[in-house]
């Protein structure tokens, strides 16, 4: 007969392999064959699905959860601790032979629907590695939201320019999905398929709706990576609250990790048998969501608000400083958290200025708007550039996201950079702050102006000294891309030279 096996142990350096050796020797001695997947530290080479499919039975000798257990769904299964395989390989092989003819052993756990969601978390890895894997899982599920939402918004801007002229990308934001019926901008009531304007509004609003899921999806799937399915609810809800409190993606990282840890903790409680059935559907989601949401609002919501107030006051008090310094600071803020509280303060500071009536063509308010917009375009464009120049430094999903980031960056959609920043906050934020600050300062120094609060290159016609704006942007993008490459490069060569962290 032909068997497959999976072995694992907490440390992943000894028992995993001894068990594999023992099973192989015992199978051979009994005239069978077995192929073992060792889920240990030396990296596990996954069994080919064809090998699993043709096997007569499965032996799990494991002290850690079997990775991707759904691959073995429906197979006759012998499920024991790793030590059993080491001390008594022949007995396990005999058990496997017996299991083949006994349908009761068909793996129930393995055939339970897992929803097909995948995490890439290696429970034997060091804490640092695991945290990175949690973030990566969240990021990889978030990227489609960024791409779908960002591209729809950019297309909306494009169509709006075509339909409404140079003010289109600004005017289109007045449209919404479901406004009171008598208002002229309600898409649900007044959509006209023959009008480019309405299509632009539709694309824009659907894109904005997709963006609403960005932080919740990031947070939800980080929590999922930590706690499996119980993590989804506290993660998503926590992420949504992080969005409402204006905490941005950094807030989403916090709620994701917190939600996952709380859910994992609760789902491991030893509870009475009667309660066990309602744990996953009622108790765990209820408690974990309350804890995460409550903690975030009470403990983190207020400091974030205080930070935003302090920054706003700081900016308002900077009236007398030189414009280039103001541009430098605003740029750095734009690049810091890509849609989070610090970014928002800088952006609001700029757009509030636009509301001043009776401004001259070259008013300071317009210069500030241009600097802020340029700085907000730096991160996605620089990461698009970096993934183009050195694709090997980025994961495959990141490379794909990098392609979309060209369009997102050009449209002043800073969120195009969030997948990169969420996966590697320290390096991306550091380089983004430097690049964006340079662009902000240069843009001010060149005296470029923008009368539009949003839209990127689609509102070029509303700019003064657009060339200066582009040069400032290009310099910041180049600087940030080089810093990102240098930082990632250093990590990679270090990882190759010594043992990877």
């Amino acid at each position, binding site marked *: 007969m032909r068997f497959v096996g999976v072995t694992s142990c907490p440390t992943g350096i000894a028992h995993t392999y001894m068990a594999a050796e*023992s099973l192989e020797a015992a199978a051979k001695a009994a005239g069978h064959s077995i192929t073992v997947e060792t889920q240990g530290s030396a990296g596990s080479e996954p069994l080919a699905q064809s090998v699993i499919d043709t096997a007569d039975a499965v032996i799990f000798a494991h002290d850690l959860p079997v990775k991707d257990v759904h691959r073995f769904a429906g197979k006759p299964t012998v499920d024991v601790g790793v030590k059993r395989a080491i001390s008594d390989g022949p007995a396990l092989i005999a058990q496997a032979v017996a299991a083949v003819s006994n349908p009761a052993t068909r793996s129930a756990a393995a055939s339970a629907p897992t929803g097909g969601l995948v995490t890439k978390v290696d429970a034997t890895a060091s804490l640092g590695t695991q945290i990175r894997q949690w973030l990566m899982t969240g990021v990889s599920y978030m990227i489609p939201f960024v791409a779908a939402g960002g591209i729809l918004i950019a297309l909306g801007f494009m169509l709006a320019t075509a339909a409404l002229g140079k003010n289109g990308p600004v005017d289109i934001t007045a449209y919404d999905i479901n406004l009171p019926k008598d208002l002229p901008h309600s898409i649900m009531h007044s959509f006209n398929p023959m009008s480019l304007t309405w299509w632009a509004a539709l694309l824009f609003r659907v894109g904005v709706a997709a963006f609403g899921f960005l932080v919740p999806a990031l947070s939800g799937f980080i929590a999922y990576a930590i706690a499996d399915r119980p993590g989804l609810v506290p993660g998503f809800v926590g992420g949504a609250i992080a969005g409402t409190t204006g905490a941005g993606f950094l807030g989403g990282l916090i709620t994701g990790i917190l939600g996952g840890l709380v859910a994992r903790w609760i789902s491991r409680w030893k509870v009475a048998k009667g309660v066990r059935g309602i744990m996953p559907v009622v108790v765990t989601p209820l408690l974990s969501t309350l804890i995460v949401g409550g903690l975030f609002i009470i403990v983190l919501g207020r400091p974030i608000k205080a930070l935003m107030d302090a920054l706003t006051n700081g900016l308002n008090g900077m009236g007398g400083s030189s414009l280039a310094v103001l541009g430098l600071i605003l740029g750095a803020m734009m690049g810091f958290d890509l849609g989070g509280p610090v970014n928002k303060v800088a952006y609001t500071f700029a757009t509030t200025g636009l509301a001043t009536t009776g401004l001259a063509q070259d008013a300071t308010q317009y210069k500030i708007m241009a600097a802020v917009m340029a700085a907000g375009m730096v991160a996605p464009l620089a990461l698009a550039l970096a993934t183009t120049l050195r694709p090997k430094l980025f994961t495959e999903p990141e490379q794909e996201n990098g392609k979309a980031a060209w369009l997102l960056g050009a449209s002043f959609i800073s969120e195009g950079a969030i997948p990169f920043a969420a996966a590697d906050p320290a390096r991306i934020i550091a380089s983004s702050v430097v690049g964006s600050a340079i662009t902000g300062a240069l843009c001010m120094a060149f005296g470029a102006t923008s009368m539009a609060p949003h839209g990127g290159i689609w509102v070029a016609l509303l700019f003064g000294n657009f060339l200066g704006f582009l040069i400032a942007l290009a310099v910041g993008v180049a600087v940030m891309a080089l810093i990102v490459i240098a930082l990632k490069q250093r990590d990679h060569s270090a990882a190759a030279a010594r043992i990877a962290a």
Partner: protein
Amino acid sequence: MSLITEAQVVLDLAGADRHEATRTLAATLVTSGRCTDLEQFVADVATREATMATGLPGGIGIPHARSAAITEPSLAFGRIDGGLDWGAKDGPADLVFLIAAPEAGGDAHMQMLPKLARALMKKDFVAALRGATTKAEVVALVNDAVALDPAAAPAPAHPHCGGSARRRPRRRRDRLDL
């Protein structure tokens, strides 16, 4: 680089219990420059040992840990006259393999630990270690067992993996595919 040197072999290992014996073996790793912090490493091994004793049938103990105090995958070997209780049901252990891996793990040298673990399941290997009379003999036996023989190396089973030194970064990216 080898897992073991003669300095990491103690043919007359002794101690009141397995923790003391482990400490003696761990000290040899400090001497040979592979362990930077004896206390931390011993604590890491004890933590692992506490989850489940590492004694195996046939008189073998394999205390082991991944530890930040360890700089490279290493093995210290000890032989105990009369044996010490290592938690196995069938009696005390007289052969002790202290297996030490760096916290992060994953470079080419890590490939030797699975080979060592597999060798421990082979009766010939264990018998030869019991019969060894010199430290050099022990080192040679271990080196033979973990030799990264290119023909027998996992290369054929891993067709898409390049040199093992490059494996880690690649694998890291593989993880993201969804």
